[in-house]
């Protein structure tokens, strides 16, 4: 579909010629995305190429570009740090401007007293954390790690992370936000709309932010979030991390008012009981099942290798067979990481006492080797800054997270055996990394105060191998089949696969949902705020009456 070069020129006039390009190789650097190979024809690593990549510097420029796109009917897909195939344009035959927000990268302000920061989309969690720490504050870092955009996780996608148990989900941490709708209007939410500043996301009256966020978020499919304010939590630690050691296994000494533990459970019942007890007792500054991403069979060998800068992955093979490591691995098989923090020494000692009692009551225990200084300091570094999230890909360069259905610990515990069994079976093809059936990772709670999370299987595959890609796709399909057979809601693999589906196939699935109200709502809402359909289907909706049986013809 040809788009007038006038559109290109108009955009150049807005952002400057140096901030827009349609060079094919440059466009490919946005089309290329992790997970594309699982959904695109012929396992292509490229999502659809954008028509142009545009880099605005301000809300005004975003708005102006949006208006041009409305005029010329070009879709808009904002991207900040952009790490998922749904960050790219969705369809081949729909010209799309990829709006790269990297020039909008300022921390506008950190209000120390009132504990919130105002940020632009290209501020990443690590930057905000580093600045917040100087003021005795901290920010929730989402599960995808500290290289991710704060605005994206607050305004447009999920928002849970290892620190959410204490610091809250970024959806709840979201305060005022600024949103350029697909129609090119600037909407300010909460207290911002009243000219009262950034401190409150709710209201006035019903919360306008209710249409911008939800659980899944619009993932770039409903306009561009150009600023937001995010609530910060307290940080009872030093103003900067005193990092030790050599890469890759940097270490962070555990302060006297902190603890960094790996807790093991003898079985999944005890594990769930332990989680509930942690919630009831209000423990945990950071709470996550993190290190198990490597697979329960290999995790100990991998991480002990990782923290030794002289070693390579070859050493994992040897270490994994070491009887001592095998024994440690068994104690860590059902385990999770727990960072405690207190305002005082009395406080941390009391937390230790409470934790020990919880462990005693639930039959859980501290995994000794993981609690030794080297591993504890590594765990502390990993969990505090969450700067090793690219380890998700450590085995073979590809990782896909299946399952991840969220619910209570009991709910999650119930699907864990099915998830483990299915993954074990799929590994028998040798076309996925054979790390054991349990490579489940997830937050202790994605909600502040506890109570809710999901576990995702870390399926490691080689994106340079067609056969391995196919094996990953098969696993996704198997996981879906297992869920259907068990009457479980479908997991994250469905979301990924849907990126490659036709609209009709997606709608057919959606029409079968037990409740379609929100999909109808979103259709109508999209019609109102996106009359030219500039946003893509990352903001899901269902056509009117789709999937409903037609009314029977009246008898003559």
């Amino acid at each position, binding site marked *: 579909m040809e788009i007038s070069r006038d559109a290109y020129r108009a955009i150049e006039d807005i952002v400057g010629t140096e*901030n827009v*390009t349609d*060079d*094919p*190789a*440059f466009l*490919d*650097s*946005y089309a*290329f995305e*992790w997970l594309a*190979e699982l959904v695109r024809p012929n396992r292509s*690593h490229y999502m659809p190429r954008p028509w142009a*990549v545009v880099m605005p510097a301000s809300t005004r420029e975003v708005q102006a570009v949006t208006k041009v796109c409305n005029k010329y009917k070009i879709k808009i897909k904002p991207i900040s*740090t*952009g*790490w998922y195939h749904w960050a790219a344009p969705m369809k081949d035959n729909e010209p799309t401007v990829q709006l*790269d927000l*990297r*020039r909008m990268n300022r*921390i506008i302000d950190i209000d120390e007293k009132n504990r919130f920061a105002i940020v632009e989309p290209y501020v*990443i969690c*690590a*930057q*905000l954390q*580093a600045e917040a720490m100087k003021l005795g504050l901290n920010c929730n870092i989402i599960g995808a790690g*500290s*290289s991710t955009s704060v605005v994206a996780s607050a305004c447009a996608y999920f928002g849970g992370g290892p620190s959410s148990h204490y610091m809250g989900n970024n959806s709840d941490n979201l305060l005022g936000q600024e949103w350029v709708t697909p129609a090119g209007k600037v909407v300010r939410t909460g207290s911002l709309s009243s000219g009262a500043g950034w401190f409150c996301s709710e209201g006035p009256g019903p919360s306008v932010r209710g249409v911008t966020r939800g659980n899944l978020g619009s993932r770039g499919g409903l306009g561009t979030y150009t600023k937001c304010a995010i609530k910060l939590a307290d940080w009872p630690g030093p103003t900067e*991390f005193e*990092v030790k050691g050599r*890469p*890759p296994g*940097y270490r962070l000494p555990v302060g006297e008012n902190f603890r960094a533990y790996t807790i093991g459970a003898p079985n999944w019942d005890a594990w769930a009981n332990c989680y509930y007890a942690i919630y009831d007792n209000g423990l945990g500054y950071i709470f996550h099942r993190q290190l198990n991403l490597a697979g329960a069979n290999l995790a100990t060998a991998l991480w002990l290798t990782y923290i030794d*800068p002289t070693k*390579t*992955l*070859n050493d*994992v*093979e040897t270490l994994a067979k070491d009887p001592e490591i095998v024994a440690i691995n068994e104690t860590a098989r059902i385990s999770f990481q727990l960072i405690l923090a207190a305002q005082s020494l009395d406080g941390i000692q009391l937390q230790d006492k409470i934790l020990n009692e919880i462990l005693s009551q639930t039959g859980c225990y501290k995994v000794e080797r993981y609690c030794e200084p080297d591993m504890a300091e590594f765990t502390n*570094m990993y969990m505090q*800054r969450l*700067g*090793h999230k*690219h380890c*998700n*890909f450590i*085995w*073979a*360069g*590809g990782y896909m997270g299946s399952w991840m259905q969220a619910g209570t610990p009991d709910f999650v515990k119930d699907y864990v055996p099915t998830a483990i069994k299915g993954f074990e079976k799929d590994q028998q093809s*040798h*076309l996925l*990394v*054979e790390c054991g059936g349990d490579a489940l990772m997830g937050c202790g709670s994605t909600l502040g105060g506890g109570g809710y999370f999901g576990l995702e299987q870390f399926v*490691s595959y*080689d*994106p*340079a*191998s067609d056969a*391995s890609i196919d094996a990953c796709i098969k696993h996704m399909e198997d996981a879906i089949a297992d869920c259907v057979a068990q009457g479980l809601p479908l997991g994250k693999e469905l979301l990924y696969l849907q990126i490659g589906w036709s609209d009709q196939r997606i709608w057919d699935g959606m029409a079968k949902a037990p409740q379609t109200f929100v999909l109808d709502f979103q259709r109508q809402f999209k019609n109102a705020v996106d009359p030219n359909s500039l946003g893509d289907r990352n903001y899901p909706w269902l056509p009117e009456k789709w999937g409903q049986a037609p009314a029977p013809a009246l008898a003559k």
Partner: protein
Amino acid sequence: MTIQDYRADAMRCTRCAYCKWVPLDLMKSWRFSKGCPSVEYGKFHSYSAGGRLITSLSLMDGRSTVTDKVKDSVFMCNMCGSCDVACKVCRYDMEPLLAMHELRAKLVEDGDLPEAFQPMLESLRKDYNTMGEPHERRGDWAKDLGVKDLTKTTAKYVFHAGCRYSFDGEQSEVARTAVEILKKAGVDFGIMGAAESCCGGKAFSIGVDQQLHNSADHNLAAWKKAGVDTVITPCADCYYAFKRLYTKHAGSTIKVVHMVELLDQMVTDGRLKMTNPVPMKVTYHDPCHLGRQGEDYVPWDGVEKKIFGQAVVYDPPRPRYNGAFGVYDAPRNVLKAIPGVELVEMERIKEGAWCCGAGGGAREAYPKFSEWTAGERIEEAESTGADALVTACPWCERNFIDAVRGTKGKLEVLDILQLVNMAL
């Protein structure tokens, strides 16, 4: 190796963007959080290591061609290796820096090297230096120093000044200082003088691999003839070329020592007596080729293999170059041993250091970008409150000196040898 050998790397890139930042654990502020000068300046993703991997793939797949913009995105880069370090925090199977090199080599092979590099290459061909100076003048800096001429005699050590120290009148003092220190320490060394030839590293960094081979062949032969078993240099670029590139590409077995390593050794064994106080607050800049790229090279010839089904490893195990064992402590030990000197660190140090901007051909072909990169580092140095920015590479020094002058700044730029000299 060719670009095709890194096809798998490109396909295994996850577009995580770690290559744009310092290792995330090391981030201490918003201002000094960036790792990659190229993407900070060029902005589009193609200016990052991840972006270049995709460019490689896109070209290999025939999805795009080499345009001027593509050339820019490939060559407007210092090849500093920050991306490589950051990527390898989590990955054992990726070699972004090597892949980027092969991309350059491919463009060179296809005749797509930017014109701006031609003067440097012409100078190398004609006069064996990158500075556009007549080779006859190369040894002038050492006149009257009474140093052995290794074209006429032999010695265990050769002192290789490098192109910049040889010809940059303002900086030659550093080479002279090094020579005086070596003489006082009783080291049996000589220089090649006018016969000294460029290490070839800069040409290699822009993808003109053949030039490296030419330089290596010439230099190794000359040193062999002179009975040399160790090359000493005050230049980080040369250090890297001799230690890593000559070993890998020319089978060199010669030992390589940077002056700063020698100084450290001399401080430890008491041969260097620094007694004059130098009351200065200084901050140290880790040159890329001495720091994160200054690790020992271990020859390897192997293949990729899979374990645990699909986990990517190598047979035999492939050595890892991730900046973990660069030369970081030696210069710091020396600085701490200088009486009166107070060392204050910048935020981005060691394997996370921000590049000076001179490397990878940037100074030659993209002077504005090179100057901007240096300016960023100057600002970082100034933020420590230091009186001087100290480093151990003439290219870093030149770029910093020019940047400070350009902004009429007050920060002094010194080589570590100059500070040592003040203390002797």
